[in-house]
């Protein structure tokens, strides 16, 4: 049994050939395109999921490569020598790192699909600001919820609830953070929707009680195929975190 924490539950090969036409040439072109776009990733990573959702929204064919973080591939080490982290998008042999940089890259290169960032400069700036907020706050505070105990845990809980409330206020009564259109901030945040169960269980609070609009938003996002096909069951995520806790010797 491998000693890694990442559970290879299924062989979900993410070779999404999303083509409209049935022709053989289209199929061939799709296969070639899939080779040109590679995503180095780990199944449970919310950062990797941002990239998968963006690629799916744009209908981009790509090859998914699952990394074993305890045994990183030479390709990963070469593609991201600075951080040696996933996700990495490799397009025509050129690596792009940092999930939100990758999402912007996908938006700019496959510009004929629906836009991820809005065209209007002010709306775009707001989207970037909130994407950055999600990046800075959720994951790091979330980790403290399941890693720490006592006073530090209470601090983390207080902070996390505050983060949820800020996001709830920003979303307001809109369908998505982008307004009527699913966009950048939605993509940045929605992978963490599958982590809400873990956060509230480890944190000792209810996300729905603190941020009901956010939960409703998450459910709306899950109606999109790009999201439902990418996010894992919250219980699987919780299992994964429990196995991490065991690995780090946390009770």
């Amino acid at each position: 049994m491998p000693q890694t924490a990442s559970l290879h539950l299924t062989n979900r090969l993410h070779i999404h050939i999303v083509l409209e036409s049935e022709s053989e040439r289209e199929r061939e072109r799709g296969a070639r395109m899939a080779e040109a776009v590679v995503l180095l990733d780990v199944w449970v990573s919310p950062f990797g999921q941002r990239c998968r959702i963006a690629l799916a929204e744009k209908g981009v064919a790509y090859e998914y490569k699952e990394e074993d973080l305890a045994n990183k591939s030479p390709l990963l080490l070469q593609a991201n020598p600075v951080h040696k982290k996933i996700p990495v998008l490799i397009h025509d042999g050129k690596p792009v790192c940092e999930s939100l940089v990758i999402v912007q890259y996908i938006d700019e290169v496959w510009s004929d699909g629906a836009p991820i960032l809005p065209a209007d400069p002010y709306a775009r700036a707001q989207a970037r600001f909130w994407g950055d907020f999600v990046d800075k706050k959720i994951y790091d505070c979330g980790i403290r919820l399941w890693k720490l105990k006592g006073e530090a845990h209470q601090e983390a809980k207080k902070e996390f609830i505050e983060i949820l409330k800020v996001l709830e206020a920003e979303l307001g009564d809109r369908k998505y953070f982008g307004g009527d259109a699913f966009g950048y901030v939605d993509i940045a945040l929605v992978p963490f929707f599958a982590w809400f169960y873990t956060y509230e269980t480890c944190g000792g609070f209810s996300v729905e009680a603190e941020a009901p609009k956010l939960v409703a938003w998450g459910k709306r996002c899950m109606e999109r195929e790009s999201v439902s096909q990418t996010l894992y069951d919250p219980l699987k995520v919780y299992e994964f975190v429990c196995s991490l806790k065991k690995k780090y010797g946390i009770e």
Partner: protein
Amino acid sequence: MAAVKLIGSPISPFVLRTMIALSLKKVEYELLPEKLGEKSELLLKSNPVYKKIPVLIHHDRPICESAVIVEYIDQVWPESGYGAILPADAYHRALHRFWTFYVDDKLFPSLVAIGKAETEEAKAEAVEQFRAGLRLLEEAFVKLSEGKAFFGGDQVGFLDVMLGCFVVWIEAMEEVLSLELLEEATMPALHGWVVSFRAHEAVKEVMPESGKVVEFFKMIRAMRMKAAADATN
């Protein structure tokens, strides 16, 4: 009423970033410095999430976070002044943004750690970490500049602005702490880049005087040391 206002002053490298961008674009604006130790009503209203400078206010709408502001400036005034700040092609844009993430997430905190270090050991460790980061940027510069003067090639680009804002602080810390951080021997390309960057008209216009930054650094160090001493009494 100025259409463009900027809350902050160039002593903050993050404010300086946005001032360099505005200067490159030759945009006129009103600078609204904050008083040290106090946050104005305007700042609190314009940046309720972080309550920090810089904040750009354009037609009464606030934009926060320096990287977001610089991209906004580039998008709103695309052909103005020196032209585009973000590179023309998507891959280079991704590289400039990646390295900006690195500067903000890793390099800048290690610079701060040097200033805050309380023991010689801690300082040496922080210095080595910072230099290691600069060595990565040295490599990145060689690749991105392709023999030209800037990360953006012939023109000052996004990463030039996002990294160049720290130059005067690096120099101030080198002087006050008697250290060499940007070593000419191991980082010759970056050394050359600093000279080109400082010489650029748009940068010269807004770069704070070295003396002012040295004084400011000495002052906050003194404040911190006094607070630490008071805490242990």
